């Protein structure tokens, strides 16, 4: 299988690569074998459009992405310097137009990513042979295209992609015990129910009240009612709400075989990419931490300094309305390293209220390096922020939280209070900034309607998108679909019955 363009690295670059690799190893980074290749911008954009993979199934959105990358580059709006994919061995692509300082920086940066891929717990369940898997997916989709026709498959892929974020990103790491009653159990129980008499024994009229006493009958009836209720409760389907909507659809939606296969592919790929979304800040921060460490201590030449500074500061640039994951990540890691070097942690430090003392706290423990390696191993962005963001850090980095002001349709600075900043940051990171959605009921109104629930955490759904997505969901479920959410501060159920959309406030139901 052709995975790479098989261009050996020019001597100049392979020397740099070896040098950078050695530095990375000396600092204790630990990575899969990493294969570098140099691409021109067109090729790099092509790889980037395919998420780093040379072979993906055919779909227009890759073309759209490519078009956007190429246009952005030609208008001077953006530039990709490098691309690295989480596989074993790791493949990394360098832009041929990078000057030599850029290449050094980028190579050092790549080793940071490779170390992170290999060691971070959230990547531990990803398929390191994803190159093969992606190519395999392409083959399967192409086969379906041959059999079903291009547009039919493409339209179905559009539908699946519309739902691709409805997975359970924690699923690979935990086993959700969900023992469902087996079919045999259900049948046995139904048989028992059928056998039971109406509770009343056959009796002559005048004997009836002795053989079938009222109160005993009453009690039996009430027990029965209760049992029926329990039963109906058990028959509620699914018994517990399901976070992995895609898996639920795979199991229960009336799909044709080829459709099931396509949906499986989309879901597999969504799971593969999920950890990258969960660790964006950490991963970029870690890679930036190492490129800056290696470059400033070993890689820089006099003539490269300006270039390095320019590139590095460009990567670290902040803007008021968008958090730069590179910047936040590297600064937090540096902060952790410093705090653990100085011993600014633990109950004693936490309980210290003397500001002066806190600021000059230095127990000279030198635990920083060890600590950040531990952090990169076990945390994802949410636990990272939750554990290590401090008021001092927020203040030093001039952080603030902003929110949407519905009255003038503008985002405004809301607070510079630590708790609020942290709260806002965590909430915008949760579920990779996407709404959390569950399957609540697959037999809603006892009519086989699908009922989803949006776990409302203060941010409303984008309504037109939600309706379009519901329509796509309907084309898979083939019965009316509903989602419970909040619209204009009121609990609301959006419904699509296959022909029209309706919006009902929940109280009316």
């Amino acid at each position, binding site marked *: 299988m052709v995975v790479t363009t098989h261009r050996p690295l020019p001597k100049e670059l392979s020397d740099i690569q070896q040098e950078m690799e050695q530095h990375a190893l000396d600092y204790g980074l630990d990575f899969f074998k990493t294969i570098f290749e140099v691409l021109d911008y067109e090729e790099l954009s*092509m790889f*980037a*459009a*395919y998420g780093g993979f040379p072979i*993906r199934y*055919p779909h*227009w*959105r*890759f*073309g*759209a992405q490519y*078009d956007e*990358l190429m246009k*952005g580059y030609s208008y001077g709006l*953006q*530039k*990709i310097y*490098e691309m690295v994919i989480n596989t074993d061995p790791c493949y990394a692509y360098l832009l041929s137009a990078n000057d030599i300082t850029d290449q050094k920086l980028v190579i050092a940066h790549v080793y940071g990513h490779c170390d992170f891929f290999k060691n971070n717990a959230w990547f531990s369940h990803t398929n390191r042979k994803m190159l093969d898997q992606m190519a395999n997916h392409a083959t399967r989709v192409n086969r379906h295209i041959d059999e079903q026709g291009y547009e039919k498959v493409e339209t179905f892929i*559009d539908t699946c992609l*519309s739902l691709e*974020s409805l997975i359970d990103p924690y699923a690979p790491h935990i086993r959700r015990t969900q023992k469902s009653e087996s079919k045999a159990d259900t049948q046995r129980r139904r048989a028992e129910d059928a056998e039971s008499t109406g509770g009343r024994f056959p009796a002559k009229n005048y004997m009836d009240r002795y053989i079938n006493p009222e109160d005993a009958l009453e009690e039996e009836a009430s027990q029965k009612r209760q049992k029926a209720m329990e039963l109906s409760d058990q028959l509620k389907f699914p018994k517990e709400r399901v976070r992995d909507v895609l898996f639920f659809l795979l199991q229960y939606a009336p799909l044709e075989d080829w459709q099931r296969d396509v949906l499986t592919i989309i879901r597999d790929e969504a799971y593969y990419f999920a950890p990258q979304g969960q660790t*964006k800040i950490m991963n970029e921060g870690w890679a930036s931490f190492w490129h800056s460490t290696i470059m400033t201590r070993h890689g820089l030449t006099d003539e490269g300094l300006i270039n390095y500074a320019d590139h590095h500061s*460009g*990567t670290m*640039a*902040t*803007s*008021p*309305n*968008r*958090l*730069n994951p590179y*910047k936040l990540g590297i600064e937090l890691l540096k902060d952790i390293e410093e705090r653990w070097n100085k011993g600014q942690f633990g109950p004693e430090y936490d309980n210290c209220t003397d500001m002066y003392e806190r600021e000059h706290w230095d127990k000279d423990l030198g635990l920083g390096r060890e600590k950040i390696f531990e952090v990169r191993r076990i945390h994802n962005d949410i636990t990272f922020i939750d554990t290590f963001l401090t008021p001092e850090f927020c203040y030093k*980095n001039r*952080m*603030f*939280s*902003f929110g*949407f002001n519905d009255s003038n*349709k*503008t*985002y*405004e*600075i*809301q607070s510079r209070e630590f708790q609020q*900043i942290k709260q*806002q*940051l965590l909430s*915008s990171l949760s579920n990779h*900034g*996407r*709404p959390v959605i569950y399957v609540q009921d697959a037999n809603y109104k006892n009519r086989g309607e699908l009922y989803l629930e949006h776990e409302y955490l203060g*941010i*409303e*759904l*984008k309504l037109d*998108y939600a309706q*379009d*997505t519901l329509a796509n969901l309907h084309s898979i479920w083939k019965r009316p679909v509903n*989602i419970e959410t909040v619209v204009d501060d009121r609990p609301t159920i959006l419904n699509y019955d296959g022909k029209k959309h309706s919006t009902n406030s929940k109280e009316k139901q």
Partner: protein
Amino acid sequence: MVRRIDRDQQRFDKIIKGKVRQQLRKYINHGEMLGRKGRETVSIPVPNIEIPHFQHGEKGSGGVGQGEGEVGQPVGRGKSEGDGQGQAGNERGQHIREVEMSLEELADMLGEALELPRIEPKGDDALTSQKDRYTSIRPTGPDSLRHFKRTYKRALRRMIASNNYDPRDPTIVPTRDDERFRSWKTVNEPHTNAAVIYMMDVSGSMTDVQKEIVRTEAFWIDTWLKRQYDGIERRYVVHDAVAHEVDEDTFYRVRESGGTRISSAYRAADYIIKRDFPPALWNIYCFQFSDGDNWGEDNTECIESLKQNLFPVCNLFCYGQVRSPYGSGDFIKELRKVEEEFDNLILSEIEDKEGIYGSIKTFLGTGK
């Protein structure tokens, strides 16, 4: 070799053009293409086609940023754009995509959407002209036709193959064998001449909105006719109480005011036809646009002029009356009286911008 991405990109392109097709009416009615004339291709803004997801809207949303500023200070309207420099992010900005299309493609779309028949030209079918088309490549030819790129590529390929290529000194010397030349084929093409005369009322009662409607419609008519005829000649007349022949640019830009005397435009058209376009050889089209607010006594003269000079020689005489906020606009009533007699007279009333699309169909739907 066709790259995977090319196929995906072509598919994307097709989808986008499908969107343009769907929204053609909107593009036409709102004159989005105007001002982009003069080039072979136009850029049309199309909304980014997106795959819908359950995603957060703006209400209740927010984030964390860095920098100076007081509480309450705005940090940006709506979702933010990319951060300029740095690596490609995984968050998408809100881009408006532009699709490049040739005017021919648009004309074809228009024709398809309006179900316009192809125009059957009058004139001598036997009249053909010969045309040279440079469509192929051959290994011999004059230096002036040398295909540099092909020649260079062959030379490069040869040097690499023979291991003479040194990337540090990338000098390529083509030999005789490497050279490639453009070559032509002579094709016979039916020769059809078409002349279009656009007349626009620019008197005081025509507001800017009306003039824009006229210009938009004229632009599309022009695009369509250009697609139908190889060599199309165009003349432009603007008039208030007197008519002037103007160039295309002026026609699309001029602002005038004054009274209205439509007959002056007809005289000018007649003069142009007699001067430039002998009717036996030319397919002649007249498009006249006005708010119909003519100086009363002039109407008789107009009809007379039409009957005498223009109807007999035109494939089509189209009159579009744009509804004006001022004036009575009853010139169209005068024409209605003679509409029956002349089947090359087409009338259309254009209420507002939304009417442009239908009006084009009225004018061009006859296939003449």
